[in-house]
């Protein structure tokens, strides 16, 4: 096993970096998009609500591979789009549907009195959302968001299907050449564990920090 790493460390580290990069872009993108769509789902405006619901239902219910291949194969006919971006855009869209649900759940479990208090205090709906309800909703959503982000890291292996040069792709290439998939995939598995382990630790720390003194 050590041998495989020694012989291919450059390739593996390249893949490791691509996986981290795609995951980070995916995390940022899906958090932003997920929040926007969660807010649309909760909006008083019926049209916004419909668009939000439709987006979430659509991307939650089709396989990530289909979304990714759509960008890699169909969209690529008109716009030049690499495997990395096809996979990462797929990840963002797919994950943001789940992130939206987490955030919507978080916002829904914020006591209604918070919004009412803010509105009675003179804040507009948007101001109340930004300053009062969203921060509390986010905090409540953090544990489930953590799960989604770990799924995101693992799902980033979708890049391997569209030649995105990520960890999984490199594992496939290496095991295709050395014909020792077992040990190759174990090594790659350890690298995934490193990312997800770090991510869990960070998420738990955020949870701890926000938890201090701000409970109801």
């Amino acid at each position, binding site marked *: 096993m050590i041998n495989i790493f020694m012989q291919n460390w450059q390739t593996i580290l390249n893949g490791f970096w691509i996986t981290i990069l795609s995951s980070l872009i995916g995390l940022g993108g899906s958090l932003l998009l997920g929040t926007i769509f969660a807010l649309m789902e909760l909006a008083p405006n019926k049209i916004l609500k419909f668009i939000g619901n439709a987006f979430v239902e659509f991307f939650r219910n089709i396989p990530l591979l289909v979304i990714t*291949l759509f960008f*890699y*194969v*169909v969209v*690529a*006919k008109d716009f*030049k789009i*690499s*495997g990395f971006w096809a996979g990462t855009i797929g990840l963002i869209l797919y994950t943001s549907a789940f992130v939206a649900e987490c955030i919507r759940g978080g916002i829904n479990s914020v006591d209604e009195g918070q919004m009412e208090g803010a509105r009675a205090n003179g804040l507009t709906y948007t101001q109340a959302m930004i300053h009062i309800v969203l921060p509390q909703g986010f905090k409540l959503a953090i544990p489930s968001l953590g799960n989604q982000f770990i799924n995101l890291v693992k799902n980033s292996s979708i890049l*391997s*299907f*569209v*030649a995105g040069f990520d960890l999984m*792709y490199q594992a*496939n*290439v290496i*095991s*295709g*050449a050395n*014909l020792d*998939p*077992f040990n190759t995939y*174990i090594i790659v598995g*350890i690298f995934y*564990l490193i990312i997800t*382990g770090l991510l869990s630790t960070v998420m*738990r720390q955020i949870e701890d920090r926000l938890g201090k003194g701000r409970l109801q």
Partner: protein
Amino acid sequence: MSKAKLKRMGLFASVILVIILIGGVMLGINARERQNKETDALSQIKQTHVMRWGVKCDTRLFGLISPKTEQSEGFDVDIARAITKQIAKDNHTHIKSEFTPVTTNSKIQLLKNKQVDAVAASMTITPERAKIVDFSKPYFPAGQSILVKKNSGIKNIKDLNNSKSTVIGVMGTTALETTKKFAPKAHLIAMPDNSQAFSALESAQGQAMTTDNAILYGFTQQSNNVEVVGKPFTNQPYGLGVDKGQTQLNNAVNKALAEIIKDGTYNRLIKKWFSNIPGLDWRDLTK
């Protein structure tokens, strides 16, 4: 217990879990290897009257799932069937062929796992693979070519030797390694299987798709927009594969192969699958 202590215990437990996991997998591999040496595939085939073949399901002409029968159909499948029949005849018994779909990536693993007895899966004979698989004599004279969009101006592999070109291959095949020799400057990307590599070519993710000419000819039947250009630039015949050390079975396969070539079955199958492909004369393939 304090929260910090609990957390440290959690971390410790995960590390232990990882060690156990890796240990378990290694033990599993050892056990499998031991088991490998113990069973003789040929006698098992004779005992169960079933020979299990791994065949492709995504490769036109060789092994492609037919929507009607939901079974793989192609030259590989027919050869496998003929060989099984011949082995049965040689051993004065009856043996049924059973087919399991394999991918380029999984075919060797399935063989190692003893999920199949042999593979007929458009597999090129290479020294690397010969270390862990026993190959039969060549059964198909393949060579690597390139498939490009019509009117692309690309005439052969040399035209792709620049940093603006991307060549698409299939993961786990030798084609991309070979391409590095003929067009070292080109970018290479690997797709999970033939049909996805072809889709990638169609959506212009690369300028050429490379693999064995036989497979590329299959795609020219599927689409009018593509053509195979240039002569094959390698000689990489296909072999049937059995697990390393299954000498008995390999001998039986080789014997059967020689016999079906001799009695004309082989040429009949070549004609059946390759006689109406533009740009290819099936007589070049006969033995």
